[in-house]
């Protein structure tokens, strides 16, 4: 708080005038430093609308130290002339005077003096005029009296060049009465306190206004990861549709369950070193349902169940190879096999969302591991129309209504369909995922009844999340290079809006 006396004096001055006051003028007339007045203005402003102060800035000319000297004693050249007696003065003597050097050249160019170089006893200076008009001094005096406006710009600039004048910017306030003007000051409270509430003193107090423009203090809290938020939503959708979650907590799978049980032939490119991570330790799986394994061998190598088979030499060694599962469909196969071992078949709807692994080339949208979302329905008499109907309902819950289906190839589904949706933003059809009807060569060896159809679909969790949160590089979303600020800032996830 500025000096209370000064603040009050200022208020009294403001009260007296009709219009307003300039803070510079107040400072001059009170004979105090302008900064003190500025301080008083600031502290009054903090009290609310006691006064209103508008900042102004003006430029004006001021004499420099040298300029002040000249205004007082005359210009250097005039002082040179007045110090030279009638009989002249040796140049060397003149040069010893403080103003000698500058004054000499100026007086010479004004032709107020002359130099006799050949004079006996050395060069001597004589004055050539008796009376002179010291214009420089006159101009500076005008400026000193605050009448700088009478000078032309050119003249002021010339004096500035001679370092006699300088232009200064003055900031000041134009002070007028505010809507709550009063000459007495009450101190404003910053916050309501328990004491004020207890005593009721808050009724008399004035409170400092809040700055509603500023941001609040961020709450000190933890955050959920955006991909996991989207996972929660997909889980919710499946649960709403009556799907039961599959136990997908087994990243390591045998080739048997990952490929062979799905009627994926052993020479299929997906089973290459280039596409799949194989394990060196534990390298092999050692336990399989033997009679089922035999039926799988047979359907691959010889056919059966209405199939020609692939007619190749099926090897147990290939089936034993342990891998990091390439899809969660390996778990679906285990679940369907388990279902087939029930005494009586019961219809099921299964889902899972979990990690799968591909030994692929990595880029901005592909990582070696990602989350697969999978849905499976098994019942008597399901049709391709049912699969499209259920996909329609599923994607509707994600807010996607325009779907179309493209024939595709997949070793374990027939028919196979790629699901496309029309993206309003991109103005084109984009691929959402894959779907199909599991082949009889996969289901019948498991022991499922002949009339049972199993429909399924899958998509990645990362892709819809990247679209939803506008992320272009998958590494910013998944893995340790995640941008935590992005995690902190990410909104709640509502997939249908």
């Amino acid at each position, binding site marked *: 708080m500025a000096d209370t006396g000064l603040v009050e004096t200022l208020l009294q001055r403001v009260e007296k005038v009709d219009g307003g006051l300039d803070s510079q003028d107040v400072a001059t007339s009170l004979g105090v430093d302008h900064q003190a007045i500025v301080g008083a203005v600031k502290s009054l402003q903090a009290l609310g609308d006691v006064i209103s102060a508008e900042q102004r800035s003006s430029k004006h000319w001021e004499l420099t130290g040298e300029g002040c000297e000249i205004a007082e004693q005359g210009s250097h050249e005039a002082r040179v002339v007045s110090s030279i007696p009638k009989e002249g003065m040796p140049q060397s003597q003149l040069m010893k005077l403080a103003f000698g050097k500058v004054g000499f050249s100026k007086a010479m160019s004004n032709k107020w003096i002359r130099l006799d170089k050949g004079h006996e006893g050395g060069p001597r200076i004589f004055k050539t005029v008796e009376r002179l008009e010291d214009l420089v001094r006159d101009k500076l005096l005008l400026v000193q009296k605050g009448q700088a406006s009478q000078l032309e710009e050119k003249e002021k600039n010339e004096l500035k060049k001679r370092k006699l004048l300088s232009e200064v910017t003055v900031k000041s306030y134009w002070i007028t009465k505010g809507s709550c003007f009063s000459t007495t000051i009450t101190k404003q409270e910053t916050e309501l306190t328990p004491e004020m509430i207890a005593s009721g003193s808050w009724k008399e107090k004035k409170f400092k206004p809040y700055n509603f423009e500023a941001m609040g203090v961020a709450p000190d809290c933890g955050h959920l990861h955006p991909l996991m938020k989207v996972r929660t939503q997909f889980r919710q959708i499946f649960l709403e549709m009556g799907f039961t979650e599959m136990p997908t907590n087994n990243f390591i799978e045998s080739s048997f369950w990952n490929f062979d049980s799905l009627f994926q032939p052993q020479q299929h490119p997906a089973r290459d*070193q280039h596409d799949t991570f194989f394990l060196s330790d534990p390298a092999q799986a050692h336990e399989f349902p033997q009679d089922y394994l035999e039926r799988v061998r047979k359907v691959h190598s010889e056919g059966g169940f*209405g199939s020609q088979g692939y007619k190749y030499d099926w090897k147990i060694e290939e089936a034993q190879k342990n891998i990091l599962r390439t899809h969660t469909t390996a778990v679906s196969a285990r679940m369907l096999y388990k279902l087939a071992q029930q005494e009586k078949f019961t219809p099921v709807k299964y889902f899972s969302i979990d990690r799968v692994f591909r030994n692929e080339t990595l880029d901005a949208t592909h990582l070696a591991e990602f989350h697969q979302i999978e849905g499976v329905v098994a019942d008597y008499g399901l049709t391709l129309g049912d699969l499209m109907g259920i996909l329609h309902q599923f994607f509707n819950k994600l807010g996607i209504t325009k779907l*179309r289906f493209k024939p595709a190839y997949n070793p374990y589904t027939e028919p196979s369909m790629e699901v496309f949706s029309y993206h309003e933003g991109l103005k084109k059809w984009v691929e959402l995922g894959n779907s199909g009807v599991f082949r009889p060569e996969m289901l019948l060896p498991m022991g499922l009844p002949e009339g049972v159809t199993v429909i399924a679909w899958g998509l990645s969790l990362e892709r819809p999340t990247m679209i939803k949160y506008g992320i272009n590089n998958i590494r910013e979303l998944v893995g340790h290079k*995640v941008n935590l600020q992005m995690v902190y800032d990410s909104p709640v996830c509502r997939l249908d809006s």
Partner: protein
Amino acid sequence: MPTVSVKRDLLFHALGRTYTDEEFDELCFEFGLELDEITSEKDIISREQGDTKAEGASDVILYKIDVPANRYDLLCLEGLVRGLQVFKQKMEAPRYRRVSPVSSEPQRLVITEETTAVRPHAVAAVLRNITFTQERYDSFIELQEKLHQNVCRKRTLVAIGTHDLDTISGPFTYTAKPPGDIRFKPLNQAKEYTAQELMSLYKTDSHLRHYLHIIEDKPVYPVIYDSNGIVLSMPPIINGDHSKISLNTKNVFIECTATDLTKAKIVLDMMVTMFFQATELAYRKETLSADFINRKVGISESTEHIAQLLTKMCLRSEVMSDGEQIEVEIPPTRSDVIHACDIMEDAAMAYGFNNIPRTTPRTYTVANQLPLNKLSELLRQDLAAAGFTEALTFALCSQEDIADKLLKNISETRACHISNPKTAEFQVARTTLLSGLLKTVAANRKMPLPLRLFEISDVVLKDETKDVGARNNRRLCAVYYNKSPGFEVIHGLMDRVMQLLEVKPGQGNGYHIQAADDSTFFPGRCAEIFARGKSIGRLGVLHPDVINRFELTMPCSALDIDIEPFM
């Protein structure tokens, strides 16, 4: 998915009409193809090698079309056109017939014992009276290459050789000999080489070097001779120069040598049927009912209409006398049809997937969550509420991440090892969530302190009792990273987790911690956590060397527990 590149104008000429790009895209979609890219040779060169190189290259427009991986019959212009024309009912599915030569006996290929040691199967055929134009010739060569890359699995399963029959004379012999005993002038070379010399010659050949490994280590190499001892080819590496085909070739001898006989037959059928002029091959017949198709697809079409739909897909079909059954003829080009469900798919495609009414199955089921996932979901919410932020780290990492950097020996980690990682980042499946969290901290050092992170996810451990010898383990890990270690913060979080899991402090049925030695932690600053009498994990202040190895600078405390005992 293989991509076939065809000249647009040539394609339209063969289809007998032009399409706009959009119309053609639409046609592809219906037929299960994808118009991947519209480009030209000039575009491709300028994109890959710069504009200057592209100068003078052809700007004839090319369509690049993605073909499903099992449709080998669509891998060349001829096959594509045939498929699309029949689909649009512009032509009938062609009949493939085998004919005997008018003036001579059929050719023979004799396979000798010795081949069993290296490449036991071979099949062959002759295409007679062919006329090659430059385009047709290019397409013929291109088809071989496409088949080699796809169904032939880069020549490992099948290798194709094509020869000008008029330069050689049968019967032919497919045998295998020690590499030193094979000597001939290979395709486009000026002199003769032994097989050994060829293998070293091709070591530097950008194309052929990829196939050398197939026979390199074998005691004998496969070779095909004609009756005069001329070498036709040394499969799967190179043909002889003597019998090479040219634009003037009239009769082509095609041989396919293989390690898989079924695939060899498929490939030979493709080569022959795509360039047939008059041949007849084995057709298979399948009988199925219209009702089967209607039930599986979810439509109700007449038997006649379904037969028409199938015929549109190159599967010539006839309604049988009972009016219910359909006899479907599967041409040799459609090796993908191995079950009635494949025929059903073709009917659905011809009907148009998008014309099938979308229905809701009446399957009634009650949803259940996996209990472990249910618990994880609930804990995640409460850990975030406790002020910790969720991280999501990779399940695969380097050995260093889970061992050296945590001051552990890899042998004590029970880690599962990957045999074919492309980089060190994929050497093992993680055995702890801690390294992922510390790497997350390291990547976010610019963020204001303290950093409080957690993750609830699976690690993988070797486990002999499981069929695959390994199992997942659901763990909860949290770190606190600040200017002071904050053991009390991480301890408080552990207390909170126990509270959430309804375990009270205390020995016996409750939980307690006791001092433990663990190389990852600062000596004297680590405790083991016991809940209901069982050790479930550790907490403590990390060892300064661990901090350094993860390129961190501040003290850090961590909590790592197994949540499966709470199920």
